[in-house]
């Protein structure tokens, strides 16, 4: 009996193994192919219509992503569902103008005019007429016309402006309340008319500055009327409209979405009639570029000068792009090393700890670029002592950014001074220096003391630099403002080390430097959402003293004004958290809003940047490098660009010209 029982158990175990083996076994190819076709007609899946799926013939570009895209509807992808991952995988729509890789020069896309035409007065209104290219086709082969532009605007209007990025992309003109002052938020587009199939007129209810035209409306997405029109017509509200699947929806880029398996992958397939295929782009250091298309060469963005930074022929080269989801960077790096994926696509880049691992693999390449953003210290200028410019300047003087970036943070950060990162070369102000630049620690202390003393601040014990101990001994005590008011205990909110060790470390050093001066600051590691909740809450503008956060930025630097003009005070729901209020700055902001040329706008940005560096509602602290890794089996047209390669992967941008390495 004992033997039989044992045998029974072994048979049971074998049975389980058989089940697993049965499930794992692969069938013959022939059987699968024939039966798949039969069932494909009857099974509901998340596949796109068959007509938009050419069989892959070239190589497959496999890209690792780290979060699941939230939607396959390209309208919803720009609204509240927008996140960077959804933006990466949605193949994009097309727009009148775009940005030229890798310099971010404004470049014509679907528009025929080399430069965005200027907005002209038109009765009580303002309008601009744009000529469209006549050779642009949607991925289904039909021509893109002015009617598609009109349809896009009318759909946004039908759903009351939509949300998320739409109010920026297609701002709707609204009626001002006659009983109140003119409201800037009612400024926008009144109408879009098709004057001919290749000519569209856009009318505004105000004279728009560059921020609206061209840097919002001209780069706004345009959707195909034939596909989306009936769906928009049938949808009762935006929620119903967003519930429509966009897989396979025609677009004007080189790839069309094909399949999506939530939690696993997204597939875009190359279209066989991409209108820009074969065009050669040569981009120069100064941002100017030439376009060689159909035997003619045109130059854009000024006179080319400097080195060629990119020279490539537009693809698509990959027959399909597979975005493969990994939840963990370690696994993704193993997949990269193993050849399972070609590129790790991440807005934050590669973790520094994994950089060495990647560098040790000969078949992997690592690129490092500067991020388009900055981390900053903000003062609540509504409260004493942060309201005193000398106080802010003295504390800023104590902050040795180079020491922090290079010594304390070990190169994980890049010291920054300007509100526009140097990599955004057209707009940046590389000459802007930090407060007390080039001074030693002793000199910084003495300068900070001098700034306070000159402004009428007093101590019961003035801080003194002790050369023997190379420290501040004694530290400052009993600091009082010019009117005799004692400096209260202050709190510096900063994300904790688990969220961002760089900012957490920085906050501790600022606490120390402040204490040297006799400023009782306590660095308080705080959850990111707690800080955001506190500093952006209109009713809590007096509940904080200082904080450290960061911004990710766009190319057009209107943030320089949005962050500080008084109409954007966070007390009324804007971005100006410090509550900075300076009529001179507001005047600059008004001029910027009305600026008509890039050069004029750039000059105003530089003036504003310098004004903020002097008044210091923010102290820009540092930016970070973005580290990216890819296999040497693929080749990008260039690898040096602000915000890294990843920033060009949105809407299949750079993937179109990514080749298989020779």
């Amino acid at each position, binding site marked *: *009996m*004992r033997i039989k*029982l044992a045998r029974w158990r072994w048979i049971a175990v074998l*049975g389980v193994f*058989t*089940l697993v083996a*049965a499930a*794992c*076994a692969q*069938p013959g190819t022939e*059987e*699968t192919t024939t*039966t*798949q076709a039969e*069932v*494909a007609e009857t*099974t509901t*899946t*998340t*596949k796109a219509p068959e007509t938009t799926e050419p069989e*892959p013939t070239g190589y497959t570009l496999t890209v690792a992503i780290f979060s699941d895209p*939230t939607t396959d509807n390209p309208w919803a992808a720009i609204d*509240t569902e927008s996140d960077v991952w959804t933006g990466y995988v949605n193949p994009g729509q097309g727009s009148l103008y775009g940005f030229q890789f890798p310099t971010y020069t404004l470049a014509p896309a679907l528009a025929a005019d080399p430069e965005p035409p200027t907005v002209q007065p038109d009765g009580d209104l303002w309008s601009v007429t744009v000529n469209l290219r006549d050779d642009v086709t949607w991925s289904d082969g039909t021509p893109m016309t002015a009617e598609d532009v009109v349809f896009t605007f009318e759909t946004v209007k039908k759903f009351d*402006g*939509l*949300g*998320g*990025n739409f*109010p*920026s992309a297609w701002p709707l003109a609204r009626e001002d309340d006659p009983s109140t002052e003119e409201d800037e*938020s009612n400024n926008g587009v009144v109408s879009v008319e098709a004057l001919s199939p290749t000519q569209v007129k856009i009318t505004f209810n105000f004279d728009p500055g560059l921020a609206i035209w061209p840097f919002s409306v001209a780069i706004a997405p345009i959707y195909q009327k034939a596909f989306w029109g009936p769906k928009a017509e049938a949808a009762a509200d935006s*929620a119903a409209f*967003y519930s429509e699947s966009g897989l396979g929806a025609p677009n004007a880029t080189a790839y069309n979405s094909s*399949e999506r*398996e*939530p*939690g*696993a*992958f997204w*597939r875009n397939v190359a279209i066989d009639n991409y209108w820009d295929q074969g065009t050669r782009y040569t981009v120069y250091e100064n941002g100017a570029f030439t376009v060689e298309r159909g035997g003619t060469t045109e130059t854009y963005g000024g006179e080319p000068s400097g080195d060629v930074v990119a020279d490539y022929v537009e693809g698509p080269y990959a027959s399909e792009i*597979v975005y*493969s*989801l*990994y*939840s*963990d960077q*370690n*696994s993704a790096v*193993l997949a990269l090393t*193993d050849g399972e994926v070609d590129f790790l696509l991440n807005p934050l880049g590669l973790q520094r700890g994994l950089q060495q691992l990647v560098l040790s693999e000969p078949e992997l390449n690592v690129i490092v670029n500067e991020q388009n953003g900055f981390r900053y210290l903000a003062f609540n200028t509504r409260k004493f002592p942060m309201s005193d410019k000398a106080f802010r300047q003295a504390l800023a003087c104590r902050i040795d950014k180079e020491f922090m970036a290079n010594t304390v943070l070990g190169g994980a950060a890049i010291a920054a001074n300007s509100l526009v990162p140097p990599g955004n070369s057209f707009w940046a102000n590389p000459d802007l220096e930090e407060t007390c630049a080039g001074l030693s620690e002793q000199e910084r202390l003495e300068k900070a003391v001098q700034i306070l003393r000159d402004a009428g601040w007093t101590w019961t014990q003035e801080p003194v630099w002790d050369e023997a101990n190379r420290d501040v001994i004694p530290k400052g005590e009993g600091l009082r403002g010019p009117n005799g008011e004692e400096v209260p205990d202050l709190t510096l909110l900063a994300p904790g080390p688990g969220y961002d060790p760089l900012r957490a470390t920085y906050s501790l050093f600022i606490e120390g430097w402040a204490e040297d001066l006799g400023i009782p600051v306590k660095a308080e590691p705080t959850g990111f*959402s707690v800080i*955001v*909740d506190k500093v*952006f809450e209109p009713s809590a503008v007096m509940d904080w003293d200082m904080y450290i956060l960061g*911004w*990710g930025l*766009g190319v057009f630097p*209107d943030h320089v004004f*949005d962050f500080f003009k008084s109409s954007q005070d966070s007390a009324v*729901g804007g971005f100006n958290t410090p509550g900075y209020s300076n009529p001179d700055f507001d005047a600059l902001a008004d001029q910027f809003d009305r600026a008509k040329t890039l050069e004029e706008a750039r000059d105003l940005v530089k003036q504003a940047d310098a004004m903020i560096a002097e008044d210091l509602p923010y102290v820009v602290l540092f930016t970070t490098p973005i580290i990216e890794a890819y296999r040497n089996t693929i080749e990008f047209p260039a690898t040096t660009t602000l915000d890294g390669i990843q920033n060009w992967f949105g809407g299949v941008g750079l993937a179109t010209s990514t080749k298989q390495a020779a």
Partner: protein
Amino acid sequence: MTRYVVRRLAQMVLLFVVFLTVTWFLLYALPGDIVKQKFATNPNIPPEARQVAIERLGLDKPVLIQFRDYMINFFQLDFGLSFNQYPRKVSDIIAERLPRTIVLFLTALVSYYYAGFLAGKYLAWRRGKRGEMVVTIGGVGLYTVFYPWFALMAIWLFAAELGWLPISKFLNPDEWRNAPFTANQVFIRLFMTVLAVSVFMAAVVLLANRIRDHRPRTFAKLGGVALGVVLFIWYWWGTAGGALMRPYAGDIAEHLILPVAVLTAVNFAGIMLLTRSSMLETMREDFILTARAKGLSERAVRDRHAARTALLPVTTSLVLAVATVIDGGILTETVFSWPGMGEVLVTSVSNEDIPLALASFSFIGIMALVGHFLVDILYGVLDPRIRVGG
């Protein structure tokens, strides 16, 4: 018994309402809201767009009104729209994540409970021997290992270096090109067929146990198991639907091996030690002495007398563990890129996607309540000494 069941059910409903209420207010007490998190730090989103989002998500209403609306909708089985994936229904997101979580964690659960029970039984019987020391140290060593590191090492060794198994994920995109099924359809079919075969086998074995004679009883059990295997093979090879889906099910099963093996290696020791202590206690009972005195073999005493009685706490633990299977596990899901309910729970809470977080917690709460209820009932069934009061 009926009165007891009715009373327990009433308690469960009351407890669930309290649970839901407390969870709702705790989630709403989190600092900030999703609109601030998502948009306040994005300079491209103007304040009016934030206001649109607030109104869409219903966050402009007073808190008590929001709570009232939520409770009414919840008990009408309307869990609302996800804040983070607006306008996607919360129920759709859970339906998408649940099958893959259940398949992974239920398979792992069965695997490590079975391994733990066998090892625990062995340990108790081999007490004081070298084998006990080796298995205990090995098991406890694995139990205390830093799980993410261990899982990554397993991926590195078995997937990246040896190439035997895939590097994480639950499918290979290349093999799913133009697949006529979604992964969820395959997960559900896989789960249902394994469940059906298991239930069939269990039913045959239970029925066979009623046969008094040893030989026909063993024959019936073996026949039942074999028939179950044959049925399984027949479905996946012999039917059009099964054959068509088989390559995709095979791909998922292949991806299942490594996470299940790692979860088994790390978790079996807990069950092993539980079984061991239960067995040791049982082996001191008089009825074991009696069994030995009757001249039964050591294996018969161990397997048919001691182990069955020692199974009680293990079964209790198993039922409660089954109830928590839908939690998934954020570490496993992250390391093995198997996004399931664990990932939903963590991201929904961290993103303050309150409808999604609440619905997820509610499912877990319901499963936990049902699990405890079943354990209470099961105790009475498994152990004749326990009887519920009326």
